[in-house]
């Protein structure tokens, strides 16, 4: 299983039955594939509905996800306008948002929407989601493609929101923000504390209960 799917699996174990969840584009969209059988969540799509589902069979007109791709909807779906969508998001009615990150720092700051001079796509709904969701999970590969740290002492890129991140889940580790401190709570099988320190610039505390990160029990051979 590749890093993205390992991360998505671990994120899925964070979900509680009944949670209202908003998933960012990319890696976070893999999360529903790994939900425990007894956990049922409702997906919020920022473009205006609750009840996003997998695309089963034929596409319906005007039914797309927040990436503009055709999608499905579950029985009991509700559509609404963008003001209502962001009332739901900012108003604390979304339990969990899962987003990718370019940088996260030890203060709980997230940067994931622009690289000055290189990539300025815009923030879309990310600033509202990170500000308003009860739990903000950053799901990302631990280091950059060049091996550089992404979990930093202080973000250098423009922030998405200040001090709002609840947890960081990578293929190597799980960190949580507890009482304003970055705390290492899980390490992936075979990964040592030194491995994590070598790939993490931020200062962090190791939880006394730090344990092995849960990974899929059976990895199906390809």
């Amino acid at each position, binding site marked *: 299983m590749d890093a993205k799917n390992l991360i998505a699996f671990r994120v899925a174990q964070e979900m509680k039955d009944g949670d209202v969840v908003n998933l960012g584009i990319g890696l976070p969209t893999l999360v529903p594939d790994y939900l425990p059988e007894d956990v049922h969540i409702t997906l919020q*799509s*920022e*473009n*205006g*509905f609750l009840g996003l589902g997998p695309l089963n069979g034929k596409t*319906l*007109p*005007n*039914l*797309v996800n*927040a*990436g*503009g791709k055709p999608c499905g*909807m579950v029985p009991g779906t509700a*559509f*609404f*306008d*963008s*003001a209502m*969508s*962001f009332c739901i*998001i*900012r108003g604390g009615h979304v339990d969990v948002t899962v987003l990718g990150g370019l940088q996260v720092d030890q203060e709980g*700051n997230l940067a994931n929407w622009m690289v000055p001079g290189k*990539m*300025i*796509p*815009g*923030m*879309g*709904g*990310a*600033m*509202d989601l990170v*500000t*308003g969701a009860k739990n903000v999970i950053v799901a990302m590969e631990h280091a950059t493609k060049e091996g550089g740290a992404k979990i930093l002492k202080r973000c250098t890129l*423009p*922030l*998405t*929101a*200040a*001090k709002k991140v609840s947890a960081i889940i990578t293929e190597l580790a799980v960190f949580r923000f507890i009482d304003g401190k970055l705390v290492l709570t899980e390490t992936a099988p075979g990964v040592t504390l030194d491995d994590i320190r070598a790939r993490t610039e931020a200062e962090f505390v190791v939880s006394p209960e730090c344990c092995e990160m849960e990974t899929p029990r059976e990895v199906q051979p390809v």
Partner: protein
Amino acid sequence: MSQTSKQISYAALRPRLRDGMSILFGGFLGVGTPEGIVGEILDSGVRDLTIIGNDTGTPEVGIGVLVANKRVKKVISSHIGTNAETGRQMIAGELDVELVPQGTLAERIRCGGSGLGGVLTPTGVGTIVEEGKTKLNFDGIDYLVERPLRADIAILKAHQADDKGNLVYQRAARNFNPIMALAADFVVAEVDEIVPAGAIDPDLVMTPGVLVNALILAEEN
């Protein structure tokens, strides 16, 4: 299909279009954008437009064709990443882009059409979005004062309208359309179907017809 007082042709929109005007456009990545009206604006040749909406679509889809054809002077939007031409013109200094968080954009437009002087939102606090804005603290929480947005014209896409202009949207095509119906001097909706007044269950109307000045029946493609 009965001819109604609010129904006009695409061509009848021409006298309303002029250089330098501001346009609120419905849609999310083109879904819920009135493609026929966008085409009419393109064909009219007007330029130096200010366009306000969620995103700039792609160079071929949604409002993006106006950007790709260099008709736009300023974009107020939450996301431009799917239209490489928007970014290229911005970096080249040909296009002014104001990026606004999506929820803030929705509230600013709602304020613009609701008689409100602005909205207080925590979104953007501690980021570059707060630059130049008034910050207020209530009960220990910082908020940015975000000011209303209005435009000369709002172009909407709805699924169904009745003779009075009452609108029903379809699925995720609703998005910014109902809010924009409040916030422009002239509001025109492109619709798939026009039915007689009374044919839409009043409980299911999503935009009251008094907000809509004109209806255009979408051309079958």
